[in-house]
C-alpha cells in the first residue's frame, strides 16, 4: 500500500517558493516509479488558489490547511499541524526545501515524529531498501555523505536549485482536501512583531540563476554598483566573498561560502575573488563558473570554465555594455 510522498510547500503571501516547485517536479519522477501518490501540503492563510498551481507541477492530491494562525510561519504552529497530519496519514516520505523555514521546521518535526532527517541535501534517489537515499555535502563541500534511514516517514530538506522545475500542466487534476488546523495555545510561544522587507528587486542568492560576486580586488564598497549593473542586465543576484564582507564593503547576507550562503546557479561570475577553499565550498556546484581576475595564478581559475585574466574595472563594465547592446 503506497502512502505517498509529501512535499511541504513553502509560501509567503500566497507566493510559492521556487524550491517547492523543484521538489514537486523531482518527486513526481520518483512517485512515477514507486507508485506513491504525490501530495502537496500547503499551510497558510488564503491559500485556496494555490491548489491549482501545485497540481500543475505534478501533485495527485493537495492538502490545504488554511488558518489565520498559519499566516506567518511559526515553529510551534507549523510543527503541531504537520505532526498531526503525518501521524494520521502515515506518508512514506516528507520533503521540505532547505530554506530558513525548512531548516527551522524539519528538525523539530522529525524529532516529534521520532524519525531521522537528512538535511541540506543536494541529491535524492529512489532506493529499494530504504525507499530514498540522499546525498549531502560535509566538511565544507570537501565530501558528500550518502545517508538513509529505514524508519518512516523518510524526511529530508533539499537545497534550493538542486532540481530543475518541470513545465507545468494546467490541465492536470488533483484531489483537494481542506484540513482543520489543530493548534494548541502552547504552540505559539514566539510572536511575530514585525517584518522588515528587504527592498532589493534582485533575486534571492540561493534561488538566483545568475550570480555576480565580488572579492577583495573590488577594493571598496563604492565599486559594488559596478557588479549590480552587470547583475541587473542579466537578471542576476550580487554575491561576495568573505574578504569583501569582512572588510565591511557589503552586508554579510550577500556572503557566498562556507560561513555564508551555498549557491548552485547556472552561471557564477567571480570578480576579483582569489578562490579560497571556504569560498569554493559555497559555489563549486554552480553549472558554469567564470573567473575574472588580474592574477593568473589565482586559485579561482582552477575551478573555472571560463577565465579572463585582466582588470575587473575594465572587464565588468565592458561585459555589461556588451550584454546591454544585445538585450536592447
Amino acid at each position: 500500500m503506497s502512502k505517498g510522498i509529501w512535499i511541504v510547500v513553502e509560501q509567503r503571501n500566497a507566493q510559492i517558493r521556487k524550491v517547492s516547485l523543484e521538489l514537486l517536479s523531482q518527486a513526481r519522477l520518483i512517485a512515477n516509479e514507486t507508485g506513491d501518490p504525490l501530495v502537496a501540503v500547503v499551510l497558510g492563510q488564503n491559500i485556496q488558489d494555490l491548489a491549482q498551481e501545485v497540481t500543475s507541477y505534478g501533485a495527485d492530491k493537495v492538502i490545504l490547511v488554511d488558518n489565520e494562525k498559519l499566516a506567518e510561519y511559526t515553529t510551534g504552529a507549523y510543527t503541531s499541524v504537520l505532526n498531526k497530519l503525518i501521524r494520521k496519514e502515515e506518508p512514506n516520505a516528507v520533503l521540505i526545501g532547505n530554506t530558513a523555514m525548512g531548516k527551522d521546521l524539519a528538525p523539530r518535526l522529525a524529532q516529534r515524529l521520532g524519525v531521522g532527517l537528512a538535511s541540506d541535501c543536494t541529491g535524492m534517489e529512489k532506493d529499494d531498501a530504504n525507499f530514498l537515499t540522499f546525498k549531502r555535502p560535509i566538511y565544507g563541500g570537501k565530501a558528500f555523505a550518502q545517508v538513509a534511514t529505514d524508519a518512516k516517514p523518510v524526511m529530508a530538506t533539499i537545497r534550493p536549485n538542486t532540481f530543475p522545475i518541470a513545465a507545468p500542466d494546467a490541465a492536470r487534476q488533483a484531489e483537494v482536501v481542506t484540513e482543520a488546523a489543530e493548534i494548541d495555545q502552547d504552540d505559539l510561544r514566539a510572536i511575530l512583531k514585525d517584518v522588515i522587507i528587504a527592498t532589493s528587486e534582485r533575486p534571492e542568492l540561493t534561488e538566483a540563476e545568475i550570480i555576480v560576486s565580488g572579492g577583495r580586488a573590488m577594493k571598496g564598497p563604492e565599486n559594488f554598483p559596478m557588479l549590480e549593473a552587470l547583475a541587473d542586465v542579466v537578471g542576476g543576484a550580487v554575491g561576495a566573498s568573505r574578504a569583501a564582507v569582512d572588510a565591511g564593503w557589503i552586508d554579510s547576507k550577500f556572503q557566498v561560502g562556507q560561513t555564508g550562503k551555498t549557491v548552485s546557479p547556472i552561471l557564477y561570475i567571480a570578480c576579483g575573488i582569489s578562490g579560497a577553499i571556504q569560498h569554493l565550498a559555497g559555489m563549486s556546484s554552480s553549472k558554469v563558473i567564470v573567473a575574472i581576475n588580474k592574477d593568473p595564478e589565482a586559485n579561482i581559475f582552477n575551478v573555472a570554465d571560463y577565465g579572463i585574466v585582466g582588470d575587473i574595472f575594465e572587464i565588468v563594465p565592458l561585459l555589461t555594455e556588451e550584454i546591454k547592446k544585445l538585450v536592447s
Partner: protein
Amino acid sequence: MNVITCYKIVPDDQDIIVRDDRTLGLEKAELEIGQYDLPAIEAGMQVVADAGGKVSALSVGPKLLENSKLKKGVLSRGPADLYLVVDDSLAEADTHQTARTLAAAIQKIGDADLVLCGEGSSDLYAQQVGPQLGELLGMANINAVSKITVEGDKVIVERTLEDEVEVLEVSLPAVISVTTDIVQPRIPSMKEVLSAGKKPVTQWSLADIGLADNPQTMETINTLAPELAERKQIIIEGDSEEAVNELWENLRQELQ
C-alpha cells in the same frame, strides 16, 4: 539569566586530505572549536553583559574533548564554567543522538533560561541540533537569529530569512541558533587565556546524565569526495574589448 552555549569540536577542514580513492584522511587535521559556534559563545557573553547572569559552555563528544588546550580555548572566550559529556560512542553521533545528549546534560545543569547554538557544525553542517533541542526540552526554538535583545522574561530577536528580517518576541526559556554575523567572536587576551585554566570544568559520562539508550536515526552509507567536475578551463588573456567579446560569445552558447 542562565545561558548555556553549545559547541562542537571539529577537524579543521583545511587539513583534511582527499585520497586517490576519494576517501578522506583526517589524521593531519587539527581540532578546533566549530567556526559557527564561536559567534554563539560571544552572543551569550553579550546577553549576560546586558542582562546579567552567567554563560556556561557545553559540549558532548568523544575523549578528545578532554584536550586541555581545547577546554581553555572555550573558557578563554568568556564562559564562567564548562560542562562536558564524554563517551567515545559519540564520535559518530548523528544529530538526534547529539541533541538527546545535549538535552539530558542541559536538564542536569538545570535552570537554563537561554540555550544558544551556532547555525550548524562546521564538519557535518546538518543545522538540526538547535530545533531538535527545542523539541526535546519543550522550549521555543528560533533559527537564523542575527540579533538578541533581552526584555524581562522575553527576548526580542531578529531572524534573517531569504529576503526579509522577522522581529520575534520569544518567551524564555528558549533555544536560539545564531548566524555567524550576529557578533564578531573575540580573540582572547593573555589574561583571559591564563584565567581560563582556573575555571570549573564538570565532566559527565552518559550514565551520569541518565542516557543509556540513544539509538541512531540516520545511517551514513558512504562518505566520498566529489568526482571533480570537469571544468572547461578556457582562459582568455587581457581586458580588451575583444577579450570580453570572446568571453561573452562563449557564455551565450553555454546559456542557450
